[in-house]
């Protein structure tokens, strides 16, 4: 029985992570994808020409992709993890445990792959719908796959675009902090409330740190001297201003992650019946 208890606790751990892992994977994918496609040439000016407008639309499509990926990944996680009201979650747990205990981790991996794949499809569809429809007309220069290796990394971006090194370094730090943010969300799979709350606090701190590291001229950030609250409000304000939206999306993204962490924890505990 002792060995069975050890296996049971592994299942418990995996089970509680079912909702979070696809979410985290999808967010990470969306983040990477949007950075691959990131165009820092966007400004707050009115579109000067069709090309400028296309870039704006592409970036706004990116934001929309974020908005859609989140509920989509939640749904995906539930699809595999599954809706306990219908008993699927319990059935999956029991079936795999009875027939092949180690199939459960495979189910977890499948949920991640499925969640990430569906999120990727969603991001791609939205991107195409909002701006990428002209991808073929633009040519290989805009292929996300061609750009992935050279443009994603901020320093590479600096080299390509002649960004000042200081701004490039700041951007690099921001990218690292943003990835840490995602890692903090991943921590939310922790079993205990202490770990989960710690992850929220860490996410908040990372968001604040990324704010502190922001400097004028950084391609993806705008500086607000009034602090995080004002900055996030500023970001929110940008979200309704289609012309300047790209400047605010990091704040939107981070604020969204924090809100999702809180919402996910509440959802998780409500479903477990522990609240």
């Amino acid at each position, binding site marked *: *029985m002792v060995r069975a208890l050890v296996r*049971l606790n592994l299942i418990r751990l995996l089970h509680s992570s079912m909702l979070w892992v696809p979410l985290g994977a999808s967010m990470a994918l969306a983040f990477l994808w949007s950075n691959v496609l990131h165009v820092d040439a966007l400004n707050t000016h009115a579109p000067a020409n069709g090309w400028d407008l296309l870039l704006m639309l592409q970036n706004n499509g990116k934001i929309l992709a974020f908005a859609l990926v989140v509920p989509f990944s939640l749904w995906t996680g539930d699809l595999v993890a599954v809706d306990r009201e219908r008993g699927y979650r319990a059935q999956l747990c*029991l079936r795999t445990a009875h027939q092949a205990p180690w199939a459960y981790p495979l189910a977890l991996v499948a949920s991640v792959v499925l969640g990430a794949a569906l999120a990727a499809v969603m991001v791609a569809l939205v991107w195409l719908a909002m701006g990428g429809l002209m991808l073929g007309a633009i040519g290989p220069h805009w292929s996300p796959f061609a750009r992935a290796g050279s443009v994603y990394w901020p320093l590479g971006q600096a080299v390509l675009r002649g960004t000042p090194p200081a701004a490039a370094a700041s951007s690099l730090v921001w990218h690292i902090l943003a990835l840490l943010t995602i890692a903090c969300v991943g921590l939310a799979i922790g079993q205990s409330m202490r770990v989960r709350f710690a992850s929220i606090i860490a996410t908040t701190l990372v968001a604040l740190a990324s704010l502190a590291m922001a400097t004028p001229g950084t391609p993806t950030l705008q500086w607000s001297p009034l602090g995080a609250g004002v900055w996030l409000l500023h970001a929110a304000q940008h979200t309704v201003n289609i012309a300047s939206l790209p400047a605010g999306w990091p704040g939107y993204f981070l604020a969204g992650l924090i809100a999702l962490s809180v919402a996910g924890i509440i959802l998780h505990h409500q479903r477990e019946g522990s609240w």
Partner: protein
Amino acid sequence: MPDEWAVQCNSVTKRFGQRLVLDAVDFRVARHEHCALVGENGSGKSTLLKIIAGLTMFDAGTIDVLDAMLTARRHTIARGIGLVLEGVSLLPQLTGLQNLELLAGLITDPAEAGTVQLRPLLREVGLDPDDHRRVGQYSLGMRQRLNLAQALVPRPQLLLLDEPSNGLDPAGIAWLIAWVAGLKDVTVVMASHREDEISAMCSSVWRIADGSVRAELQGSE
């Protein structure tokens, strides 16, 4: 190990960092004996149970548990152990019966996997097998009863119970005393800090304090 002993700890030592929790402890339990480990919170009762179960490694000494010998260098888990540890064995998303089925399905050792009837087992501990509520909605006492039922799933020869009366109301404790008394063919080692309840359930009592274990009542040592 002579057949009469279910558990025999010889000079078992366990440290957590610099803190010496068990200091060359000698402790033995006869087969079919019902034995209690008492002591203050943090005295090492649960640690000793986990060591006996094979869940926690120890630093020195040897332990004979049923047919297995545990040493500080060789990690072994004995067959035939039923275990109740606080908060480790229940999935809150499942019903009580599903939890038992899950555990039964995870037991792969032929010596333990068996023909235990889960529904009667649930009734035995005072739970309704047709209760469709999830365990997350159970009271603490109901969860503890389910934990006790789980411990019987592998048809144990040795039951290790950590604070078995946790969450039980007075009626539940009375039931627990009678339930333990009915386990005549099973060796029971329980850890508790509630000494008033222990005397009704156990024929021998060992006290853990300052890293040492000593017998308090005749019948053990």
